[in-house]
């Protein structure tokens, strides 16, 4: 019987965009990079990893001086040095929110004057620099833009850590809604004509008392400058939504096996299903060795404790070691097995109960030490190829 193909290999070959999402601290960025390395070394083609995490270590692992807003190709010498064969090519780019916004404004602004007015507006600077909704929006925008160049066979993108599961997906639509909002017109109208209409009056009054006329004026000025670009934003937001729903795009939910991240992962999977988006796989990182939950190993552990005296005597005499030290070491071995076995059992049980909406569940073993280079990333990628336990 032929082996069934690996779900990850299928996804890498068939999709043009893979989006890793999931709770924070579970290795999303590393997973995205590992998939990129795996694709470049195994399948070929031009692969791009788009990260939102300015992890210096990841840049180091990819042999790059640092990953910037510009796309940078990983030199083939770095692959050679790490002993990783490469069929295609691998590039990386990091999302620099502020820079991407500035680029976007520059591209959409009708004239230089409007562009400069927007870029200099304190509201714009604060909005793009500090606030997270703008981060979500620009991440999707940048992904769209890179995909639209047609230069990439595969783009693996990791998503910004959002407060709510799929905020980043809603960001383009929210941006579009925002620009076509009636409230925005209310806000801008008095600044333009000095006339407050009847419907908007209560709103303007409250806003005025809280924020002051001057600030409201600043807001209005900002949006008036931006108005020439609304159409572009709305159009783009719709295009991004279509791209996410396209059958060339899949989402990968990444999690660890701990209770809290798993709860969040489950929620991610539900949200994707509710939006009719494709969940390609659920990837669980940092999985402890299966031997920890093996009943035979559990028997061995109790054997070790029961026979520890005799064992210590035999080991010390035959290996020429101090018996007290051997006893102590044997006790520690039993203890650390017991500690990790509890965790492994609990996590295995949580994994078994995780609803994955029909998507395959991939268990990636806990890597020893930190991933320092391409071979480490490749090893992690290869672990994802293995069939699930």
């Amino acid at each position, binding site marked *: 019987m032929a082996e069934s193909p690996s779900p990850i290999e299928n996804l890498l070959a068939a999709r043009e965009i893979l989006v890793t999402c999931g709770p*924070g*601290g*579970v290795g999303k960025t590393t997973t995205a990079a590992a998939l990129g390395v795996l694709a470049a070394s195994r399948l070929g083609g031009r692969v791009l990893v788009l990260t939102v995490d300015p992890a*210096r*270590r990841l840049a180091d692992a990819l042999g790059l001086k640092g990953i910037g807003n510009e796309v940078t190709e990983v030199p083939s010498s770095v692959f050679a040095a790490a002993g990783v064969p490469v069929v295609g090519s691998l590039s990386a780019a990091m999302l620099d929110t502020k820079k991407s916004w500035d680029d976007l404004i520059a591209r959409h602004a009708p004239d230089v004057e409007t562009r400069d007015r927007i870029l200099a507006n*304190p*509201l714009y600077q604060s909005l793009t620099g*500090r*606030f*997270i909704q703008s981060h979500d929006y620009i991440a999707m925008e940048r992904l769209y833009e890179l995909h639209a160049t047609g230069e990439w066979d595969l783009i693996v993108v990791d998503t910004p*850590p959002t*407060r*709510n599961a799929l905020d980043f997906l809603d960001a383009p639509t929210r941006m579009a809604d*925002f620009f076509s*909002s009636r*409230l925005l017109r209310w*806000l801008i109208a008095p600044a333009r004509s000095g006339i407050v209409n009847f419907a908007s009056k209560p709103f303007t009054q*409250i*806003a*005025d*008392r*809280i*924020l*002051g*006329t*001057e*600030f409201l004026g*600043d*807001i209005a000025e900002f949006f008036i400058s931006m108005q020439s670009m609304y159409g572009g934003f709305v159009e783009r937001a719709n295009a991004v939504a279509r791209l996410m729903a396209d059958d060339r795009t899949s989402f990968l939910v990444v999690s*660890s096996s*701990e*209770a*809290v*991240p798993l709860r969040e992962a489950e929620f991610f999977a539900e949200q994707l299903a509710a939006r009719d988006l494709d969940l390609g796989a659920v990837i669980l990182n940092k999985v402890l*060795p299966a*031997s920890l939950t093996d009943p*035979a*190993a*559990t028997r*061995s*552990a109790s*054997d*070790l404790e029961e026979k520890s005296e005799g*064992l210590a005597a035999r*080991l010390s005499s*035959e*290996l020429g*070691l101090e018996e007290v*030290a*051997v006893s102590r*070491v044997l006790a*520690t*071995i039993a*203890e*650390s097995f017991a500690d*990790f076995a*509890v965790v492994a059992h609990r996590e295995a049980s949580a994994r078994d109960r995780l609803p994955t909406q029909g998507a395959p569940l991939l268990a990636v073993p*806990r890597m*020893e*030490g930190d991933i320092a280079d391409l071979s480490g990333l490749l090893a992690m990628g290869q672990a994802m190829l293995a069939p699930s336990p």
Partner: protein
Amino acid sequence: MGAAPLVERNLIFVTGKGGVGKTTVAAGLAQMLADQGRSVLGCEIDAKGDLAAAFEVPPSRFVPQKVSDGLSLMAMDTEASLREYLKLHLRIPIVGRIGPVAKAFDFLATAAPGVKEILTIGKVCWEVKERHYDTVVVDAPATGHIVSQLSAPQVINDLVKVGLIRSQTDWMSEILADPAQTGLVIVTTPEEMPVSETLELVGAVAAQTDVDLATVVVNRLLPERFTPRDEVVFAEISGPEGRAILDEEIGGGAGPLLEAARLATVLRRSRTQHLDTLRAGLPADLPVLLIPELFSRTDGLRATRQVAIHLGEERL
């Protein structure tokens, strides 16, 4: 104004990278303070219900609910905060007309940076100012968002020249900048990314906010398994000869046992390195608290209790 011991402060923000146990530590801290007889309000900013889950009570609401002796919980809701604020300060008759206000608010919060943040910070500072509780423990946003949260009063000050919000930022800034009242706790684990994010955050907090960094809590410290001498003995026992003896004496074979012990040693070693990096990067006089890995439980009331006990044992 000198810094007060953490347990005596009135406003404690707890932050940390996702996955390090920020909420469990915030819950443990609140529990520990309540155990010491203080009246504590736990406030959850991300309305995900994790803080309530740490006490195994139903999701919190904006109005604080008592969960046990000396401990109440609330969940931040910026819209409710705005409504409360308008009622208190403007006496604007909007209480019954939630719909349009919610819409207007949603819009404003998106349009005007800092509005959501100021309503969040404003509410917790208000609770401190009114002395409704001895301590407000805030399960604050993760490392990426905490700075914009804590610096919201300054941002608003820079952007808004007049208006009600502007007139409110001074007293908030005063509370936030007072190390006798307010402190920030950063939770991390002795792992690579959490440590580097913590060090970056320490710099950003100092540069962009006036909030005093009170302590760093290192969660999930692994126990030291082998002394260097015992490690040599372990290596001998795991060698071919020792291995053969163990396999012979032990029914199921020694492989998984030795593997688990080796994993424990490797992890412990790498975590020790990261802990050293952390210590080297932190100000020398900053207290660093250690919480051991809880193998048996990582969440729920049991974990909260254990963290409270460990924190109680550290001198805060």
